[in-house]
């Protein structure tokens, strides 16, 4: 039986959040009442002309840099001609001949656990279309979305599985939404849209066979499933002696399968030519370098650094990479404390996220210094686990530093080693019968002594220390 491999490329549209639309000064809020944010330019009135938004250019350059792409100092705007009811001018202003960004890359981890670079062919700027809604036989058009800035990121066909595609998509989502903050990231509203081009070939072959395009796989929940399903479908066709047809398909999440949307009869001819109303876009190397300095540390670099600097586990790494605000919190706590990174990481990712929303972490009230100081109390065994949880609750309620809480509340004042030793000795002295049995070989009675001792210490002793001292006391009796 032939083994197959999949060849997958993704086209991701990122709706860029800017104050204005791409080519006019209408507000970029598509959620305003229908057809509120419109003007002659974005509705294609006769005589209206596009003027490029500087903010859009700056954000596109930042995205190019974040995706490791070459920023082209001269790029072109071009007209893509086709008639569609949601296209005000019946052509779209896009970048066809020379995009703003070329040849970027992102890392994904393959099924074999090895990291691989996925090539990004091009990153280009374009305008969004109006939104249509169907009402019975009628189609309603809302032009609030028409002319909103979009960036399309087109990968090389380097992806091999639904899982890899999902990782790649998620990474672009993280970079655009969480690291650069240039996209709202609302998938239901179509802020990020993903189409997948998929073909199969015998493993090891370099042929590029007929592909299908699966539209709108923009959900982390089903992108991998949709792609894997399409791969299976194509394999089944070829195995049965058939041929894969060139077509556009749509994922049906209910039936968990892709379905034909339209057959592709020949290639569309979009009759591209340079947009004469804009002319080429020229930017300077200085402008690009200036924007480079505004870039945050990016996921691939960050993961490497966190792993080396803090030695935290993979689960915590994933969390910190996916939620930069949580990560920043962790790093601030770590920089201010003498506590161990693992305790801070555990408390940040554990107790704190049980009560705080990681999606909206900027609003957290608890200062990172307080988590650090709690971790220090734990590390130095000044408080035990149950006490730490209680202190955590008080700390969140009162906003006080854990050190203060412990100092002002006698319940949390741990007793010293001398006192612990005295209690251990007293408990052993009070239970001669049990001591006899223990010394006679019933070593499981140790728990009984420790329990009694902790009770007498009102929980303020370190259980491990107590256990050690009780054992020592018992052993001394033997002599």
């Amino acid at each position, binding site marked *: 039986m032939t083994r197959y491999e999949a060849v997958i490329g993704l086209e991701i549209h990122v709706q860029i959040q800017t104050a204005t639309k791409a080519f006019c000064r209408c507000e970029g809020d598509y959620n305003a009442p229908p057809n509120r944010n419109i003007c002659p330019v974005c509705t294609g009135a*006769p005589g209206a002309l596009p003027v490029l938004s500087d903010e859009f250019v700056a954000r596109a350059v930042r995205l190019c840099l974040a995706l490791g792409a070459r920023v082209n100092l001269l790029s072109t705007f071009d007209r893509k001609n086709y*008639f569609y009811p949601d296209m005000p001018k019946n052509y779209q202003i896009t970048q066809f001949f020379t995009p703003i960004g070329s040849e970027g890359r992102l890392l994904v981890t393959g099924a074999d656990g090895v990291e691989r670079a996925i090539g990004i062919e091009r990153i280009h700027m374009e305008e969004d279309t109006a939104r249509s809604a169907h009402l019975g036989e009628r189609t309603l058009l809302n032009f609030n979305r028409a002319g909103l800035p979009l960036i399309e990121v087109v990968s090389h066909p380097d992806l091999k599985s639904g899982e890899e595609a999902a990782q790649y998509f998620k990474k672009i989502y993280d970079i655009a939404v969480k690291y650069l903050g240039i996209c709202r990231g609302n998938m239901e509203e179509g802020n990020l849209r993903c189409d997948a081009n998929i073909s199969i070939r015998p493993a090891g072959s370099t042929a590029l066979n007929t592909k299908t395009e699966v539209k709108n796989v923009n959900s982390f929940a089903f992108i991998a499933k949709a792609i894997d399903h399409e791969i299976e479908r194509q394999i089944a066709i070829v195995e049965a002696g058939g041929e894969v047809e060139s077509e556009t398909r749509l994922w049906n999440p209910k039936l968990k399968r892709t379905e034909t949307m339209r057959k592709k009869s020949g290639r569309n001819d979009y009759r591209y030519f340079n947009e004469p109303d804009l002319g080429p876009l020229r930017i300077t190397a200085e402008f690009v370098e200036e924007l480079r300095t505004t870039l945050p540390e990016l996921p691939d670099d960050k993961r490497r650094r966190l792993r080396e600097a803090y030695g935290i586990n993979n689960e915590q790494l994933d969390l910190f990479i996916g939620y930069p605000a949580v990560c920043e919190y962790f790093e601030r706590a770590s920089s201010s404390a003498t506590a161990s990174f693992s305790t801070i990481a555990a408390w940040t990712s554990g107790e704190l996220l049980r009560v705080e929303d990681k999606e909206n972490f900027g609003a957290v009230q608890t200062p990172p210094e307080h988590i650090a100081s709690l971790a220090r109390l734990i590390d130095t065994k000044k408080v035990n686990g149950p006490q730490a949880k209680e202190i955590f609750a008080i700390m969140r309620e009162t906003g006080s530093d854990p050190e203060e809480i412990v100092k002002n509340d006698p319940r949390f004042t741990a007793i010293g080693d001398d006192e612990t030793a005295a209690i251990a000795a007293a408990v052993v002295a009070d239970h001669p019968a049990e001591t006899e049995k223990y010394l006679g070989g019933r070593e499981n009675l140790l728990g009984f002594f420790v329990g009694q001792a902790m009770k007498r210490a009102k929980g303020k002793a370190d259980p491990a220390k107590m256990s050690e001292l009780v054992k020592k006391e018992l052993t001394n009796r033997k002599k």
Partner: protein
Amino acid sequence: METLGVKDIYGNIAAHNGALNAYLQVVPEERLKPGAGPLSGVCLGVKDNIAVAGLQLTCGSKLLETYVAPYTATVVERLVAAGATVTGKLNLDEFAMGSATTYSAYGDTKNPWDEERTPGGSSGGSAAAVAAKMCDIALGSDTGGSVRQPASYCGIYGYKPTYGTLSRYGLTAFASSLDQIGILARRPGHIRELMQVAAGRDGRDATSIEAPSFDAQAFDPAKMRIGVIAEYEKNMGPAVRPAYDRCIETLKKAGATIVPLSFPEYDTVISVYQVIATAEASANLARFDGIRYTARAEGCSFRETTAASRGRWFGAEVKRRILLGTWVLSRAYYDSYYLRAAKVRTVILNRWKEFFGKVDMVLTPATAGTAFKRAEQPDTFALYLEDLFTIPANLTGMPAIAFPAGTHDRLPVGLQLTADLSRDGLLLDAAAWLEKNVMGFATIERGCRHDAI
């Protein structure tokens, strides 16, 4: 600016517009809003492909019969802010595609010198209105000569600025890389006054540029090197040749140096223009789909509605150019037509840049002959050839002005001066000198037989 006054202008409109069909819409006299500023009292006619909020914007097309512009073009806005008053909208070939104003869906405009004849096109309404004194000055648009050719046929001045000097915001696009709003006037000084107000960068037009100075400079013909193009001579009709020779003679006598130039690519300009202009037009006119603001022919689907609306209301010439433009951009022909034309355009630009290393201005006819009879309109292709002398300025972006230089058989003859990019001021200085020394409108109008002039 010495103006005719609202009373006279409205008198002329009442007397002649019925016959000439220059205005498609006249703002009623009682609704004129007199403005204050340097252009106070100036009555401005506007070609009906330039937006003026609240006035119709038909572009000479049935498709836009009921369309009212929702905003005002930058140029009009600036002129009105300086005191000018818009008197109405002027006839044109549908979407400015034509050379005789015979392709208007609202009837031909007639030449005030002879109503049997064309006023030229596509800004025929603008030229006729200015010549017949139905406005002080008019705006037109010039994509391949659409301001200069009708100005020449009507014995007035027609000026196309350096590309970008007047904002295109509000001008319905025909071919965006060639289109410029232009000015039609009876005196070159009027053009200067308008430009001082209207020219310059506009935040709403990315292709607009800083304006050069339009202040009058002393013009000394003795310091001028005037280029003449050898290849053009054989394309010059007998009606034009005497005026051309006379103009050269006058300049020579005044001390100008006449420099012969060679333009070996002259016979490519029509093809290059047709390919580029129709390609851009095919996209620019795609927005007229029957969906948002045009007349709508009901169909069962978007495709049917669009096809039916465009099929029913676009005129034959517009359809011809859209088809041609769609063809030259299609994948199979892009390289051999569109891309090739774009390359030859660069060659032509370089040739004209080279000219201006040697000369200050180039003198050519504006048109090969005088206004032809509307009933004897040449066939489609011969009509395209009308633009031979005017097209280079659109392909290169250079400024050019058509000026009246005499009459032939009691019809005006126009010549043209072209200058290097942004040397618009020089052109207007030269035109003012020529007005005095050759033959301005004021002189030749006396020879006119039409009572409108």
